[in-house]
């Protein structure tokens, strides 16, 4: 696989700045808020795994609601480079008017970069697929796929080990056509 630095995606030299840019892209690529910070973190986690180099950039950790990135959390709450980019409304996150301007500038600046365009499309796909899940449904899918992140988690027990809860969540995902009956059949 071709290696490239994270910076080469967006031509920036600061890791914090790059994290903020990823957040702006993730929140801006769909014109609707992301319902919780948990959703933002997990969607960013998946996006980071698409690109090996950014997986290290975000430093996702095993955490009580892990996977969790302190850097992404800090950037979302108080961005250093893109001030007032994010709006928080009843726990949901979206871009502010300034954030939307940053988003369009970033897209315009990188429009001829095929890697950037691919990452942006994938961010849009991730938003489309995961925004609509409840926090518990999203947590179930993440913990079943990346079980190493159940370590230190204080929600994985309720989701994976509480049989009734687990069964209801699986049924809900199946009824929505998100997974099929065999997804966790080896359990």
């Amino acid at each position: 696989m071709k290696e490239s630095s994270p910076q080469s995606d967006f031509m920036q030299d600061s890791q914090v700045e790059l994290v903020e840019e990823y957040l702006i892209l993730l929140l801006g690529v769909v014109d609707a808020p992301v319902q919780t910070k948990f959703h933002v973190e997990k969607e960013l986690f998946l996006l980071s795994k698409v690109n090996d180099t950014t997986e290290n950039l975000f430093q996702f950790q095993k955490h009580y609601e892990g996977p969790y990135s302190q850097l992404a959390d800090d950037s979302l709450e108080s961005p250093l480079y893109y001030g007032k980019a994010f709006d928080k409304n009843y726990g949901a996150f979206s871009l502010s008017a300034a954030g939307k301007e940053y988003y369009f500038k970033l897209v315009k600046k990188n429009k001829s970069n095929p890697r950037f365009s691919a990452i942006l499309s994938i961010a849009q796909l991730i938003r489309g697929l995961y925004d609509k899940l409840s926090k518990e449904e999203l947590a179930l899918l993440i913990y079943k796929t990346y079980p190493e992140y159940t370590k230190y988690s204080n929600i994985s027990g309720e989701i994976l080990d509480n049989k009734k809860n687990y069964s209801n969540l699986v049924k809900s995902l199946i009824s929505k056509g998100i997974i099929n009956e065999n997804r966790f059949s080896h359990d």
Partner: protein
Amino acid sequence: MKIGFRMIDKIVLADTSFYICFFKYLKQPDYLIKIINNFKFHLPGIVKKELRFKEDEYALLKSETSITEFDDLGLNFSVPLEPFFGKGQVGKGENEIIVLAYVLSSVTPDTGFCFILDDPLKRKFVFRQIKGLYTKMMCTPSFIGDCCLEHNLISPEETLLMLSKLKTSTFGIDIKVVDDLMERLRNNGKN
């Protein structure tokens, strides 16, 4: 020497099952070569890896067709679908095809493009979860049908023979789709 030339301006992404269909089930790689050389077939990384396990077939594709190896840009395209289908190797190629198809349809919306996916589970997922994409999705039999009805690459008689073979094989197909297609072929393309 590569047979034929590209005359149809359409990018095609196909899952491994499409290639295997011609090699193993139809035993007619000549048709596969002809089809590939008349479209812009792109071969994504995981599908290429899966095909490379079948050395002779892969060598034939490399030597006889104009298939383009897809530049994966250093990205792991199958990742966004892993939580829905698992992280294992099985089905990874299909996940990659779906995500790549999404990227291609977003980045170049005006380009002629389709993707071929046979797994009914994955097809259902695209249909229900990625609504904008399913209009670009085909299965191997319907693509073969299009090669006859839309592009005149294969005669109706040859196509009917191929579809009959598939119907009696263990290749996973939707019988209704194949029956409808055969009916259309018998009616000279009319529904």
